[in-house]
């Protein structure tokens, strides 16, 4: 398939993209629709005795058929996704999920036209392979603070809301079916309730797909999304309950009680299984310091095992997966290397993205392929009832919940919550799972698909303009701010303290207790080395510094990072010390130019060469006669100060190794000058003492550093010079650990 090349070229024009897409669609459909052309058999039978010519080029498609088709499908899905984002107009109006369903319909149509059998979104494929990555991604990156703060609300919506939906829809449909007439009279109560269960659950995949694009505020996101995750337990229990009894025919009160007990077992059991696997995963990650490469795999495998183990016992796999991710995350992140952390993050996002895309495409394909029994009344009734029950449920429950919430839910919030209750592929798969002797199956499936299409397409498309129309609060994209983190912690302690003074055990009190328990017992077991005693503020700070260092390296060659438009540096905030006199002879400007030119030449050489330079080597070339040791110290200071624009990591070697810091090799430094830095008549500005030193470079012991008069240079640095230098320094540092002065391995 030469399509990938064509696709790249086609970035230039949508028409070409369209043509390529269609071509690919046709190819995929033809390929996946079971081809069984006559290939040469793998083992040419020579039993006839007739000697065939040796096949120079043979065709054997059957051998690779299965993986070939799978890969082709995934490739198609991703190319489609790529295509949508190239065409900006469409992707602004229509959410991606709709487009993907459309593509699925198209492909399904083509396959149908060829009169072949299309692959269907069967239950096993969905529940075992497509759903876990999405849920794991969601669970691992779940905003814990918001989730736990709103846990009560979420639980009420998930449990009571879903129950209400199921019974309301089921009951009403049964009622209407009885009234309607002979056509639908065959539908008994239990089947209706079963149908109601299937169609009532809010689907996490659809919610994620749509809410991701509208960037709504965190509270609403967590309420709707949390509900979609936690209602899995209810759905599982009700589904099995009704399916069991739709065979038996009747439900007794005892069964109802058993059902309630089952619910608790399913949900709590699922959470427990997940937590156990999570702790195992955290414990394992404690020992992976020598085999960093396989660290991400542990995270994925333990989580997947948690899901499968829960499914074995018919516990809630989704809740197990969430519990595993949530439990594992803080400890794993403290243990793994930065690269593993990035790998985990990106692999999860990648898998969940692929899964989501495939799910929607398959949904489209299955729609065309599946057995359908269209019944106007039933379908329209289902859609209307879904909407109505959702609205009523949200309004009613919010009324009750607001009595207990401190921060109440406004009408706008309620509207978004009601409108965001999307149904998706889980409903479809559950419907598919219905045993075939249920004669209503086709009708149910049709109705389910219609509901899914309606919610995803209509509600998905209109939610964005509605959010803008109602001026719902959006997510405030704040990058990590050390001040916010400090004050978040401060507030936690403050509120706990005030609660203690007030005298009641509130939310903060228990959170504080849990944190302390975590710190004293759990962290010691699950986190390797000295990181186990590192307070959260410090890890946050280190993470931020690391991030900024990375950003600096990455953007070194590009334009200046926009965030650092400020020229404030450490010296502006440090309290002044007494000014010291200047005693170094200044270097002449022409000399500076020469040095700079030479240095530029050196800088453009390969890094390998530079890496081997030491301070003394550099001295040999242009510097020998005019430069002194003091001068070098001055340059180092100047460079450090420039770096201090960006980073404030103190580099006391004497610091305990527990504090993770970015390592910079002191010997492999390149000194540069630029025009603006020529020593004009500056007042010698005092440098902050070594104790407060904000040098990036690991400072040599104070013996060396009677750091003379320090010239704090002018701010007018040449950007590229600095960045070049920064980039080189940092990239060198971060790629080549060099002689490892720090005890910890730094990646």
């Amino acid at each position: 398939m030469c399509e990938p090349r064509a696709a790249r070229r086609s970035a230039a024009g949508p028409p070409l993209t369209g043509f390529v897409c269609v071509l690919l669609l046709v190819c995929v459909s033809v390929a996946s629709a079971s081809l069984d052309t006559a290939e040469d058999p793998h083992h040419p039978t020579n039993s006839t005795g007739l000697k065939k010519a040796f096949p120079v080029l043979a065709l054997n498609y059957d051998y690779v058929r299965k993986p070939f088709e799978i890969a082709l499908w995934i490739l198609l899905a991703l190319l489609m996704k790529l295509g949508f984002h190239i065409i900006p107009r469409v992707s602004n109006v229509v959410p991606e999920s709709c487009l993907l369903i459309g593509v699925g319909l198209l492909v399904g149509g083509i396959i149908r036209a060829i009169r072949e059998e299309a692959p269907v979104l069967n239950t096993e494929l969905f529940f075992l392979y497509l759903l876990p990555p999405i849920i794991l991604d969601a669970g691992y990156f779940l905003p814990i603070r918001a989730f736990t703060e709103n846990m009560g609300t979420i639980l009420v919506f998930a449990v009571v809301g879903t129950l209400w939906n199921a019974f309301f829809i089921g009951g009403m449909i049964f009622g209407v079916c009885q009234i309607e007439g002979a056509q639908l009279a065959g539908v008994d109560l239990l089947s209706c309730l079963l149908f109601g269960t299937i169609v009532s659950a809010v689907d996490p995949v659809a919610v994620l797909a749509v809410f991701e694009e509208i960037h709504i505020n965190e509270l609403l996101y967590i309420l709707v999304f949390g509900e979609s995750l936690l209602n899995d337990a209810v759905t599982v229990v009700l589904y099995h309950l009704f399916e069991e009894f739709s065979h038996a025919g009747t439900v007794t009160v005892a069964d109802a009680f058993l059902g309630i007990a089952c619910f608790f077992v399913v949900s709590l059991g699922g959470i427990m299984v997940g937590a156990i696997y999570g702790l195992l995963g955290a414990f394992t990650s404690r020992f992976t310091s020598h085999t960093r490469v396989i660290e991400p795999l542990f995270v994925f495998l333990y989580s997947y095992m948690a899901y499968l183990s829960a499914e074995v016992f018919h516990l809630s796999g989704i809740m197990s997966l969430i519990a595993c991710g949530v439990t594992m995350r803080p400890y794993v992140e403290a243990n793994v290397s930065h690269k593993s952390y990035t790998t985990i993050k990106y692999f999860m996002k990648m898998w969940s993205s692929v899964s989501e895309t495939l799910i929607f495409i398959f949904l489209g394909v299955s729609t065309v392929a599946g057995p359908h029994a269209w019944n106007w009344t039933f379908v329209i009734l289902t859609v209307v009832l879904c909407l109505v029950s959702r609205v009523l449920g949200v309004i009613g429950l919010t009324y009750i919940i607001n009595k207990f919430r401190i921060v109440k839910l406004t009408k706008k919030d309620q509207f978004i919550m009601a409108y965001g209750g999307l149904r998706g592929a889980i409903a479809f798969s559950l419907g598919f799972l219905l045993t075939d002797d249920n004669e209503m199956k086709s009708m149910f499936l049709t109705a389910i698909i219609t509901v899914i299409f309606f919610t995803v397409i209509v509600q998905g498309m209109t939610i964005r303009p509605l959010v803008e129309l109602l001026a719902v609060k959006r997510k405030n994209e704040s990058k990590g701010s050390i001040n916010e983190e400090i004050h978040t912690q401060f507030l936690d302690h403050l509120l706990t303290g005030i609660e203690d003074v007030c005298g009641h055990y509130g939310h903060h009190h228990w959170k504080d207790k849990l944190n302390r328990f975590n710190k004293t017992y759990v962290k010691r077991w699950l986190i390797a080395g000295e990181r186990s005693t590192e307070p959260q503020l410090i890890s946050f700070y280190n993470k931020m510094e690391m991030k900024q260092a990375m950003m600096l390296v990455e953007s070194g060659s590009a334009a200046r990072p926009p965030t650092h438009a400020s020229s404030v540096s450490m010296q502006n905030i440090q309290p002044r010390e007494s000014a010291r006199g200047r005693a170094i002879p200044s270097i002449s400007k022409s000399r500076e130019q020469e040095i700079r030119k030479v240095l530029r030449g050196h800088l453009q050489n390969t890094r390998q060469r530079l890496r081997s330079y030491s301070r003394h080597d550099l001295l040999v070339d242009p510097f020998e006669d005019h430069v002194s040791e003091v001068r070098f110290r001055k340059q180092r200071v100047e460079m450090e100060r420039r770096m201090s624009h960006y980073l404030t990591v103190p580099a006391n070697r004497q610091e305990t190794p527990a504090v993770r810091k970015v390592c910079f090799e002191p010997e492999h430094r390149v000194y540069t000058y630029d025009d603006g830095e020529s020593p004009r008549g500056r007042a010698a500005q005092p440098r902050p003492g070594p104790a407060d030193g904000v040098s990036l470079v690991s400072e040599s012991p104070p013996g060396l550093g009677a750091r003379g008069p320090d010239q704090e240079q002018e701010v007018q640095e040449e950007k590229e010079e600095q960045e070049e230098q920064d980039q080189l320094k940092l990239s060198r540092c971060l790629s080549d650990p060099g002689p490892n002065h720090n005890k910890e391995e730094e990646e």
Partner: protein
Amino acid sequence: MGASQTRSEHKHQHLADETGFSLEQVKNLHKRFQQLSGNEETISRELLDSVPALANNPIRKQIIEAFFDKRNQHHDEVGTCEEIGFEQFLMVMSHFRPPTLKTTVEEKEAMRREKLRFLFNMHDTDNDGTITLAEYRKVVEELLSKSGDIGQEAAKAIADAAMLEVASTNVPHMAPEDFYEGITFEHFEQILKGLEMETRMHIRFLDVGTTTMACGKSTS
């Protein structure tokens, strides 16, 4: 007995109107105050210090100071008291009330400023209107005070980084000779804009009396 009861009712009602609590909440808090003070009229620092649950709190001292800080009483006074009565106690507590459904946008803004002002007062111990680097360092040190040596060394770096951030955000272009005096209240507001104080800084005040915690007074 009856007369004093109606008198205290009136007083409670008056306090409720002034601080925004409900009557039941005021009564509840009054009960707690009595418990803390041992039925006295005032409480002192030592009494609050002896609440056992506060022992594990790293910023215990600041919290207790906040109760005795006159700036939090909204009477435009400065300085500290030695002992506080119920009215002052309630006033401090009123900073932690949550917004209700009926609070308008302006009221929410005012509430936010009030809460931020409370926090600011907690940091600005010398009452010069700015949080200097030294004061901020003290804050971070206290926060990390339960974490031993690691905490102390990193505290300085963290405080410096935080200060740098405030300065960069609020006064982006400073010449090298300029000196950033300290965080003013406006800068403080600006830097904590994203935290939405009015929805975060609150605790639940009960209408029903469930003072379950002992207040640590030794009954000898």
